[in-house]
């Protein structure tokens, strides 16, 4: 049921997330775009789980856990970068650039 439309929507959302990562410089908005991509993948899992059994839904559960952990650690890193640079703009986060 609704397999094709769900996969299409998932592809569109993933592409929007990639575009967001490429055009934004704000580190926090970048993180939101990554969450958007993770959500798109979750939608693929749920759509295919209708035919492949409930393992897909269990995997979505794990993806959400990893996303929550990633958001917590990533935002803590952004917080400590902000303390040093007074900004979350990627323009000023260039310590490792050669």
């Amino acid at each position: 049921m609704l397999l094709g439309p769900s996969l299409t929507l998932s592809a569109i959302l993933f592409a929007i997330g990639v575009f967001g990562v490429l055009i934004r410089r704000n580190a926090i908005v970048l993180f939101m775009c990554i969450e958007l991509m993770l959500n798109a993948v979750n939608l693929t899992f749920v759509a295919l789980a209708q035919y492949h059994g409930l393992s897909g839904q269990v995997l979505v559960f794990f993806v959400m856990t990893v996303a929550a952990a990633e958001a917590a650690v990533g935002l803590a890193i952004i917080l400590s970068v902000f303390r040093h640079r007074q900004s979350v703009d990627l323009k000023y986060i260039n310590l490792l650039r050669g």
Partner: protein
Amino acid sequence: MTELVFSVLAGFAVISAIACILQRNPVASAIWLVGTMFALAGIYVLLNAQFIGAIQVLVYAGAVMVLFLFVIMLLNLSNDAGDLRGWPTRLIGAAIVVAIAVPLLTVGRYTPQRLASEVTGAVVSGDPAAALPAGQAALAAVTAKGVVGAVAVPLFQQYLVPFEITSILLLTAAVGAVVLAKRKI
């Protein structure tokens, strides 16, 4: 009817995702992302994943986005005009996105019959449910054990070890976040 509800939710999800990446104010971005997540939760319910829909609202739209908003407001970010990258980067980005999206969009033509054919290795033209018994078993499990029980059985039997490892991951993330964000330990 289901198709209509799906179209409305999908349209809302795409519009709010686009608004999320184009809003200059990070708080507005976060609010639009919450809209996308709510729409996706509705779509999960349509796709017979009611438990995942509830978790989506609780964990993503609730916990994760509140964390994002909390950090945005803690840092007191102004909406700088220079947040978006310049036109050359935007065009290169658009090219990369088209290169990624075109092959991805071809999966939209996937039908359950084709999925069944590829999984079983034989040509399935009739009812895909006959070739993919797992889907029917999942539906029967939802009917027999309820929405939560059907997900709980594989989670606590087949995937018990990954589930336990998840708890270690969350503990590590919690400790790591405290260590990273604290000024002096």
